């Protein structure tokens, strides 16, 4: 079995950059509950690929700008 991925996200930062978009607005755009956005920001939930794309669409950015594979980042830093 492969090593567990450590996936972090920039949702809080992207919301701030999008004119302080509220969690409720993002939840409505992504089609999930506000609690799910709260859990995502707190790193308590890793979304499905579909939801990850929907969140990236809500910010109009590529998925890689929203979700980051920390292990991969470390690999590239070497």
């Amino acid at each position, binding site marked *: 079995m492969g090593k567990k991925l450590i996936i972090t996200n920039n949702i809080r930062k992207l919301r701030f950059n999008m004119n302080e978009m509220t969690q409720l607005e993002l939840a409505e755009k992504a089609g999930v*509950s506000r609690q799910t956005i709260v859990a995502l920001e707190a790193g308590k939930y890793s979304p499905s690929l579909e939801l990850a794309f929907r969140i990236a669409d809500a910010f109009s950015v590529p998925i890689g700008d929203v979700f980051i594979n920390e292990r991969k980042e470390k690999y590239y830093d070497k």
Partner: protein
Amino acid sequence: MTVKSKRTITSMLVSTILLIAYIAFALKKYSSGQESLKTWAITILIFIGITVVAQIIIQILYHIVFAIGIAVKERECNEKNIDRTISSSMVEDEMDKLISLKSTNISFIFAGIGFLAYLVLLAFGGPAVLALHILFGSFLTGVIAAGGVSVYFYERGIQNG
């Protein structure tokens, strides 16, 4: 604590109170010597009906209290924003489905163990009424345990895969 955790805890509390009430009622009835399987089956069916009705009433009350809570907390918001907050909190999304899947697994484990105990008891000539109650108790315990698991995942978080 999230809205969904609170809703689950409310539901669990109702189930637990009804289970305790049933145990008290059943012990009293059992000691009075009524042991007909048919009578117990009718009693359990009535109890299930009461549980369903109680859960519906509690959920309606919970929604009303939640709506009032939002309205009080966000006094400056208009009605439309309050509606948005409530409907966004009640949406069932992929995280809810994942948690529901995990908690249902737990309730199946309880129900499975209960069913095995039921069969073993009957196989060894145990009283049918007791076997019926073991089966019923395992289902109810499973439902309460599933609620506990849901709250755990809502609070601690859950990962796909």
